[in-house]
């Protein structure tokens, strides 16, 4: 088994579940014969047929609404939205049905469905192909919002998402779709959906991020280690509902926290993390929690998107500030 990229690991997990469970069906635009615009479903139509890997009309509300109906019959639809920026025609379905059906019917109808989509900037794509609006989804009670940052996590978390009894939004950081290769065993082992990954232990400061920004966060931790600053690095993975306990435990140890998020600054997941830590770990904190984020603006188009994206140096500077705070 060769080493896989993140998007290849997504493909592997989809193939595994299609083979394991006849109720699993993929739906989306251009996902069939063409294998999807990022090749996430490459070869699956050929292998599993047009009734398991379905090309839909160009209508996101159709994709999600139809998934709701199928899931209500006990099928396990895995819907693909081509880019996160095109979720909005389906937002009505997500907010008024996907997130609510279990609650609305007091558990009589449940929706074991997954909505996958690539998200995030830095790939020089046109408008609506670069945003990070995970907070819009994370804000809806009834949804789980999961974001892998390595090939192995993409595989294990996508298995878990498909097997979960509730709807899961699965956000794929496309900037790192092909950036890292890793050995991924096709063992069908799901990862837990409700846990953060503490991927580097440290004692001075807790660095928290998710998705593509994990790349910059890891690099910052490396760079800071050379200056003798020990960072604990946490990949949040499930931005809703948050694994608050792991975050609190880490901050109780380090006393400092920097949260890195690509999305705009205000009202995002980083704000929620900071609020939880302020409530639950205030006495452990020896410096203010810092957020390194995108700006509160529309994601600039490709010529200037670099001005928006958080960088390794911005993270390093923030860590230096919390280290120097007294």
């Amino acid at each position, binding site marked *: 088994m060769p080493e896989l990229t993140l998007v290849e690991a997504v493909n592997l997990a989809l193939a595994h579940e299609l083979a394991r469970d006849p109720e699993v069906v993929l739906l989306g*635009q*251009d996902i069939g*014969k*063409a294998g999807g*615009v990022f090749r996430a479903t490459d070869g699956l139509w050929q292998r599993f047929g047009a009734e398991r890997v379905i*090309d839909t*009309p*160009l*209508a996101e*509300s*159709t994709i999600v609404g139809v998934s709701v109906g199928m899931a209500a019959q006990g099928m396990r639809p895995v819907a693909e939205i081509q880019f996160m*920026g*095109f979720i*909005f*025609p389906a937002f009505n379905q997500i907010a008024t049905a996907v997130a609510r059906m279990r609650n609305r019917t007091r558990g009589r109808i449940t929706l074991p469905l997954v909505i996958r989509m690539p998200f995030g900037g830095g790939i*020089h*794509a*046109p*408008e*609506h*192909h670069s945003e990070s609006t995970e907070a819009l989804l994370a804000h809806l009670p009834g949804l789980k919002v999961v974001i892998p940052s390595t090939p192995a996590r993409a595989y294990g978390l996508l298995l878990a998402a498909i097997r979960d009894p509730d709807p899961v939004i699965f956000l794929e950081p496309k900037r790192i779709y092909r950036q890292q290769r890793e050995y991924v065993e096709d063992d069908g082992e799901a990862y837990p959906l409700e846990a953060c990954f503490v991927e580097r232990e440290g004692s001075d400061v807790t660095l928290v991020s998710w998705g593509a920004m994990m790349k910059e966060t890891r690099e910052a931790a490396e760079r800071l280690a050379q200056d003798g600053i020990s960072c604990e690095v946490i990949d949040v993975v499930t931005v809703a509902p948050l694994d608050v306990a792991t975050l609190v435990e880490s901050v109780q140890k380090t006393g400092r926290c920097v949260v890195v998020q690509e999305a705009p*600054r*205000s009202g995002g997941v980083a704000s929620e993390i900071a609020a939880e830590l302020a409530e639950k770990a205030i006495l452990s904190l020896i410096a203010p929690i810092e957020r390194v984020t995108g*700006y*509160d*603006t*529309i994601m*600039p*188009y*490709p*010529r*200037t*998107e670099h*001005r*928006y994206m958080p960088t390794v*140096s911005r993270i390093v*500077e923030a860590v230096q500030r919390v280290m120097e705070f007294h």
Partner: protein
Amino acid sequence: MATAARGGRKARPAGTGGELVARFEVRYLRFLDERGEWVAEPPAELLDPELQLRNYRDMLLLRRFDHKVLMLHRTGRMGTYPGTMGQEAVGVGMARPLTERDVLVPYYRSATDLYVRGAALHEILLYWMGDERGSDFKAPHMKHDFPIPICIGSQLPQAAGVATAIKLRGEQGRAVLTAVGDGGTSQGDFYETLNVAGAWNLPLVIVINNNRWALTEPTCAQTACQTLAQKAVAGGFEGIQVDGNDIFAVQAAVAAALDKARRGQGPTLIEALTYRLCAHTTIDNAARYVPKEELEAANAAEPLVRLRRWLQNQGILDDRLEAKLENEIKDEIEQEVELALNTPLPPPEAMFDYLYAELPEKLWPQRAEVIARERGTGDA
């Protein structure tokens, strides 16, 4: 005019008889065939040599422009770009009959109609190079025209909104022209627009660029309908199909529909049948999914050659004039490309300065930070 579709042709009756209460027909409009020969008599005003030479020149320019953009992309100087090759008659034919008082609400594959409308090539280039200023059309008569929308279908209810404003204000002689792809007709926004346009009898013309593909999906993956034009039936107004490779047919249909709208006689849906002779965008490889024979047939029916043949047969165009046009076109494209490539980046604060009429206090520190970072002081 041939009849392209009749209601009920495919549908099987579900019930047990009953009286026939409705019926529909869709007509197909075509004047000039692939060989450049008339199959029907076009409206006399379209036979004006100057007009058709102008149409030809613009179509040729857009064909050359498409190629130029592809080359720029290959050398890393251009972002993702949706080509218009093969669809020039749709864009040029639809934008030509617009008056300055009308409003254009384009879809995203629309360099053709935007150019004819008056957008400069460097504006179109800047937009697709990833510069917001490309949507700030400088031609004064484009003041109310909408920018390129990427979210498929979203422009349609907005176009209905512009038409509603025109209607509520009782403005005679103004209409709205909008466009959508064949794939875009699957969106709820498309059907909602048909509905409101019919219900309110809006001065709106919707052109469907049916180029047979929505990215990798053929039109039959979108709909069971025999024509897309017949979707107007559900809106309660007229839908017609035209040969989208025949500029005479496109222009005649759109001109008549705009006239009707300007007179307060309501909306029209026009399905222009053409073919995407290029890839979906500069980052797509259409050879992976477009059948070769289909592409060959489409190439034989393309819009530019037939207009050229007709102009030549009329003695309007000869080799000398063709060479002169090519030179003029080359110069214009080169100049506009230079202009776009040499446009400096906007200042960093531009990412804040167009968010609101007045920047809220909370955002001033962020604005200061991006300026400081750009200056390299990094002190924010």
